[in-house]
């Protein structure tokens, strides 16, 4: 582990100012992602700005208009909230499936949203990456996944983002001058090397969710039933009226460098949930996911599995019998 100093600012303004005054610093919340990368020699900031003592970043609060989740609320705390586990199922289910129990106790909402992207050529020891001439994402010039390409294809693997996307989340961001609020989808960029549209000294303060979202659910695929990052994760929010689609949103993680809302689901509004409609969902997913060889599991598999999950979750929310691919 490289040497570093720790600062413990008492509030958001002080944290952001510290970040500005020390360019070689990083915000530290649960540390379940950052500290592992530091041990791998990927990142070695001179200063870690520990956000643990900032009250404003904590708490899950519900008003009549919205639910606010502080950025340093732990992953483990989400499914323990009766409100979230009843009305925001996708979020609670996504949280329950993250890594292992130890990680969930430490990891935070803000940390999971800002998770670094992952790739088999990147999440390796310093020795390993050195032996391979490094890669486009860190210290190198070639992307080993797509050597002809110009961009990094490392995949985003956070579980909370797709759930929050289908639930219509906005995030509150604090910077030096001002605070701003943007739809969660605008936080992400399809570039594995720079996938977060955050300024250097900006930080996520809270997530805001609208009340009364449509029923939602989340599922993911991974090599084992615990610990492993998703090969593909899908969240679906579906409201129906008389058996017809009223609202349908599908969020996907693990397949691209960013989590994203599936485009084209609006065209399915008013349609019955039948085999034809499910086939269309399947096609939309297969067309829009862009898995690359960033995991040991094949890219083709992640594409098919994401589509299979999306169909299944739509069926589950519609209450129709389980669909056989």
């Amino acid at each position: 582990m490289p040497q570093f100093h720790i600062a413990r600012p008492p509030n958001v303004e002080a944290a952001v100012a510290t970040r500005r005054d020390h360019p070689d610093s990083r915000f530290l919340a649960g540390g379940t992602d950052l500290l592992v990368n530091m041990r791998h020699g990927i990142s070695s900031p001179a200063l870690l700005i520990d956000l643990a003592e900032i009250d404003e970043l904590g708490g899950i609060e519900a008003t009549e208009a919205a639910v606010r989740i502080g950025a340093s609320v732990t992953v483990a705390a989400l499914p323990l909230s009766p409100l979230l586990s009843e009305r925001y199922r996708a979020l609670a289910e996504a949280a329950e499936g993250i890594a292992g129990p130890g990680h969930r106790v430490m990891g935070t909402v803000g940390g999971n949203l800002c998770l670094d992207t992952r790739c088999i050529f990147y999440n390796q020891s310093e020795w390993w990456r050195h032996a391979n001439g490094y890669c486009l994402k860190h210290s190198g010039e070639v992307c080993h996944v797509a050597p002809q390409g110009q961009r990094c294809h490392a995949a985003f693997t956070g579980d909370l983002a797709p759930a929050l996307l289908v639930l219509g989340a906005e995030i509150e961001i604090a910077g030096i001058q001002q605070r701003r609020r943007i739809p969660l989808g605008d936080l992400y960029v399809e570039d594995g090397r720079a996938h977060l549209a955050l300024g250097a000294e900006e930080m996520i303060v809270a997530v805001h969710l609208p009340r009364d979202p449509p029923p939602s659910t989340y599922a993911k695929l991974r090599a084992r039933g615990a610990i492993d990052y998703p090969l593909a994760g899908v969240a679906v929010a579906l409201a129906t009226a008389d058996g017809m689609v009223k609202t349908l949103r599908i969020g996907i993680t693990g397949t691209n460098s960013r989590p994203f809302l599936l485009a084209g689901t609006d065209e399915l509004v008013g349609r019955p949930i039948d085999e034809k409609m499910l086939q269309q969902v399947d096609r939309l997913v297969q067309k829009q996911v862009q898995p690359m060889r960033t995991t040991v599991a094949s890219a083709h598999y992640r594409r098919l599995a994401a589509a299979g999950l999306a169909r299944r979750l739509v069926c589950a929310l519609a209450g129709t019998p389980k669909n056989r691919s």
Partner: protein
Amino acid sequence: MVGNAAIDAARGLKALLIAAAASKLEAKPEDVECVGEVFQVGAGGQSSLPFAEVVKAALAERGPITISGTFTCPPEAQGGKHRGGAVGSTMGFSYAAQVVEVTVDEATGTISVDKVWAALDCGHAINPLAVEGQIEGSIWMGMGQALSEETRYAEGLPVHASLLEYRVPTIAESPPIEVQIVESHDPYGPFGAKEASEGALAGFPPALVNAIANAVGIDMSELPTTADRVMEALVERRRRQRLDSTRKVAS
């Protein structure tokens, strides 16, 4: 073999302790008896020494105690002229049987192991609870080989370089395991025992592959049976079914 060598060593150790007790008790070694944790002369208890005192006496006499025991398989058990036979590894081969029940998710290629039944003829089970634990451990190990553990390389470098990527089954994958110890008495084995380790391991991969074939009609020819390999085989099966049905229509 190790068991018999251990017995040989234990006998040597016992003789050494009895000799130490005899000299302390001023008796002949053949008159000293070891009863549980007490060494005594004859049946009476008039002159006796507790185990710890005997060990002290032996240590005082000789310094640190090291005993080695040896065992060689009898010639008739040393194997024939077949390849590898010359090592004469063991005389007591255990027999094992295993049944694995799985659920295969055809939409995602995911396999979950619902239950495992394992029977092992380990000879005499000296410590049945330890045998049972050993069999459960073997099943986990076999499950890792069959489902998730592998070493692949990318550009000559190991991709599974840490325990995050070298995927050992977790408690989340652990199915209920029903263990049956089928006891026998092996005449050569230590106390009639054979072995209780790899016999229960080797059965898992073939039982799993057969269970998958039984569930969805695909024959997995490569381990581990990861979800992407299962999916590939399922896609291939569907393709063949389509071809067959179009041929039938054509003919």
